[in-house]
């Protein structure tokens, strides 16, 4: 980490997006994480993604729980309101805010301790409900802030820094998210910005729960030989099934590909997910096939990455609640307080 904040000056030649913001307008406070932490790369990818999809910074609402990963929302998009909740409970707080203000873009950042252990229940139920959000788990397989205990996503047989071997079966949040009905599911690696940025862009543009599991090695406590969440291990076992480009509704389409190589998915907001297949047989619109493929590859010790599943026509929580188009937090007294005559009628019915 550095103690020196960058000056807030913007160089006039900095590239601007369609709203006139530069990438620097999406930055946050200086990170307090360890130098080289994968989480900082993810924050950088979030900044890049928000910039590229022309998101007005204050239209984002960012949430987290407790842990190293959950510190990060302070380190990106400062003009957005942020909420650092209690341990494992980010999903419920975000759900409540989303119910109240459906007109914002919701991003929840969590870790493997926060979402796979104490918060597994809230993770599951948030996904089930189809809360319109991007849910990023910065997954390092270890408790960093308390200095190196195994987390629930640690693989069986993975070794701790001091040599202990993990005996418990791992929780695969991607598989869970698929089973629970997430409508956009991806996995990536903090060290692969080219894969991660488009995945986040697609997620932020998605209507419904978009879940991204990002392997993000802990350089302080889980980056040694014998760990299955180290930089070297993840690089060696990373198997990307596709490459994603996200084309915002306003952007001109100019790239050309040979037929059959490409799959295009148009999302609710008009953005286009352009998928270039790397794995011939992989169909990222087939939930059950994705589950089978992931199970098969996990048994082989491979880490499947890419956009693993997307349903572009998903419904979200508000569709089920059938709420009015205006956000609930913008309703005024006249919308909310029934007339006195209604109360008199209720009184009459209780006599």
């Amino acid at each position, binding site marked *: 980490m550095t103690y020196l904040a960058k000056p807030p000056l913007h160089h006039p030649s900095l590239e601007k997006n369609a709203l006139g913001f530069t990438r620097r307008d999406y930055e946050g406070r200086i990170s307090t994480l360890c130098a080289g932490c994968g989480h900082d790369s993810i924050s950088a990818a979030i900044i890049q993604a928000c910039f590229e999809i022309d998101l007005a910074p204050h239209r984002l609402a960012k949430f987290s729980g407790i842990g190293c990963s959950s510190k990060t929302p302070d380190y990106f998009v400062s003009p957005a309101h942020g909420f*650092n909740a209690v341990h494992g409970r980010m999903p419920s*707080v975000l759900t409540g805010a989303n*119910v109240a203000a459906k007109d914002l873009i919701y991003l929840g950042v969590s870790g493997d301790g926060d979402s796979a252990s104490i918060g597994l229940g809230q993770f599951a*139920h948030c996904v089930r409900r189809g809360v319109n959000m991007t849910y990023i788990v910065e997954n390092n397989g270890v408790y960093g802030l308390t200095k190196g205990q195994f987390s629930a996503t640690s693989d069986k047989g993975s070794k701790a820094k001091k040599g202990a071997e993990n005996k418990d079966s791992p929780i695969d949040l991607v598989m869970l998210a698929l089973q629970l009905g997430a409508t956009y599911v991806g996995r990536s690696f903090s060290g692969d910005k080219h894969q991660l940025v488009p995945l986040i862009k697609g997620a932020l543009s998605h209507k419904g729960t978009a879940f991204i599991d990002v392997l993000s090695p802990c350089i302080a406590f889980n980056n040694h030989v014998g760990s299955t969440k180290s930089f070297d291990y993840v690089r060696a076992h990373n198997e990307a099934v596709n490459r994603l480009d996200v084309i915002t509704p306003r952007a001109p389409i100019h790239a050309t590909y040979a037929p059959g190589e490409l799959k295009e998915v148009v999302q609710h907001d008009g953005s286009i997910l352009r998928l270039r297949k790397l794995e011939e047989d992989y169909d990222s619109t087939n939930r059950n096939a994705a589950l089978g493929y992931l199970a098969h590859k996990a048994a082989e010790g491979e880490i499947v990455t890419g956009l693993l599943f997307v349903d572009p026509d998903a419904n979200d929580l508000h569709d089920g609640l059938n*709420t009015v188009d205006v956000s*609930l937090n913008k309703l005024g007294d006249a919308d909310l*307080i029934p007339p006195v005559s209604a*109360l008199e009628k209720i009184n009459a019915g209780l006599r």
Partner: protein
Amino acid sequence: MTPLAAVNDFVVKFANVNGSGSASANGLFAKVILRMGVPVGARNIFPSNIQGLPTWYEVRVSEDNWLGRRGGVDLMVAMNPQTWDADVKSIEPGGYLLYDSSKPLPAAKFRDDITLIGAPLTEMIAAEFTNPRERQLLKNICYVGVLAQLLGFETEVVKQLVTEEFKGKDKLIQPNFKAFDLGRAYAEANLAPIGLKVRRADKVGDRIFVEGNDAAALGAVYGGATFCAWYPITPSTSLAESFEKYCKALRTDADGKRRFAIVQAEDEIASIGMVLGAGWAGARSFTCTSGPGVSLMNEFIGFSYYAEIPGVIFDVQRGGPSTGMPTRTQQSDLLLAAYASHGDTKHPMLFPANPTEAFEFGALAFDIADRFQTTTFVMLELDIGMQEWLTEPFKWDPSRKLDRGKVVTAEMLGAGFQFGRYRDVDGDAVPYRTYPGTHPSKGSYFTRGSSHDKDARYSERGEDYTEGMERLLKKWDTMKYAVPAPIRKNAKRRTPDGVLYFGSTDAAMDEALHALEARGVHLDALRVRAFPFTSEVFDFIRDHEQVFVVEQNRDGQLKSLLINEGGIHPARLVSVLHYDGTPITARFIIKDISAKLEAARAAALPEKA
């Protein structure tokens, strides 16, 4: 033994098996009396069970408007063999026992100091109806018929109510009439008149008969709540259900779209998390729960206190600790709610005494939560929440505005308002807040439960921390001017003795004070309606030598709060505690206070030489 004789002043208790359909017949019984202009206090005493266990329904008939529990039973309708012995034993000497005489019972099963009223209910119903479920349900209406004849009910009133009850299910009306008539005709032909009578009066006025949970939910609707996140738990569940019922009727647009949202969460922790998320984003939101739920919500409640986020919790109290007595009433969550969560915390609580106040406080709680940006408790009790009370009608001032508190708008930010989330700008220790998405470049902040400075930046500096904690304490003092003041009732003559009480005890206390006064025992009374305590509460204690504190818990939780918050010497407060899970009775209060006054007087007398 002379049989009891009373007009419009007696207690009837029904002993039934739950799941047998007795609730609607018993409710009908109470409503007939109300429609005849005679006030009733009615209470279900029911098990945590769906079918097969004992349940009771107690009706206090009182033209003088004593609507709390009196204690004792004048007429027992004993329909449950499981509880027969205890039920018979509970009848006042000279009282009455109505029972099903279809099968003979040994003489040892009865008492000779009460009047026995046997009616062959099962036999009569079996002769007229064949369907087993129908037989079971109509037996209940049949005993209402017997009672109607004995007590002098107006038959037209009964029939009118049955017609209203089964509106839309019209084919049920005739069988109910028939069962009622069987009972009434049997009593007319075979039973001697009894000393208890209901006589038409004009003492009900424009009052309504309603459950506290229903009232509180309606209060939330008028109070502008748009979001309810909840998890089912007895005795609070019907509050969420009522909120949905009223919102569907009152907050649905022509196209079916809803100006409200209800989420049944996965647990109480998620419920309060959602409530705070929505409160943070500027929508009025609440959860309804009971003690076990509040236990689970503790971490978030402390978060709300420290990060200053509005939310409302309706705690419908039941018997604790642990799973305790889920279907019995208590006032035993005061300490839990007052100081919920780790670290130094305090939370406002409102104590409604009846459904009318449940409605008023149900709305007011949202103003307090928004104004002071903190979790606000409405401390209901099972006895209020799940019982129908005869209570003043709901009123709403059409000019009343929702008080959203100190919210900074985009216009204010644009005009140069210097926003700092936790700054005390106005000297009342209440800071300003912004909703997310307010302004493109100003007014954002980061909410966290970790220590922060007055601009919401993470800080571990001791001065930043203590400054924030001191301001929260000062905000607590400001709150004293916003919560409902206590209600004082002075004795007719000057007295050194006072009594403090709150919540559902109000009804029984009114009757107890009246009776004590008739015996020459004078007490000034103060009903506490909120925490933090206002200065009137401590003034009252200071003005009396001895103050009884009447509570429905074991440990004297209100007393503990008074000692803790007011620096009161414990010896000045004398606990009067009723906590067996049944609602407190006037007789209990009279007896306990009389005994304690007597003991104090005896102790004060000089020893005999």
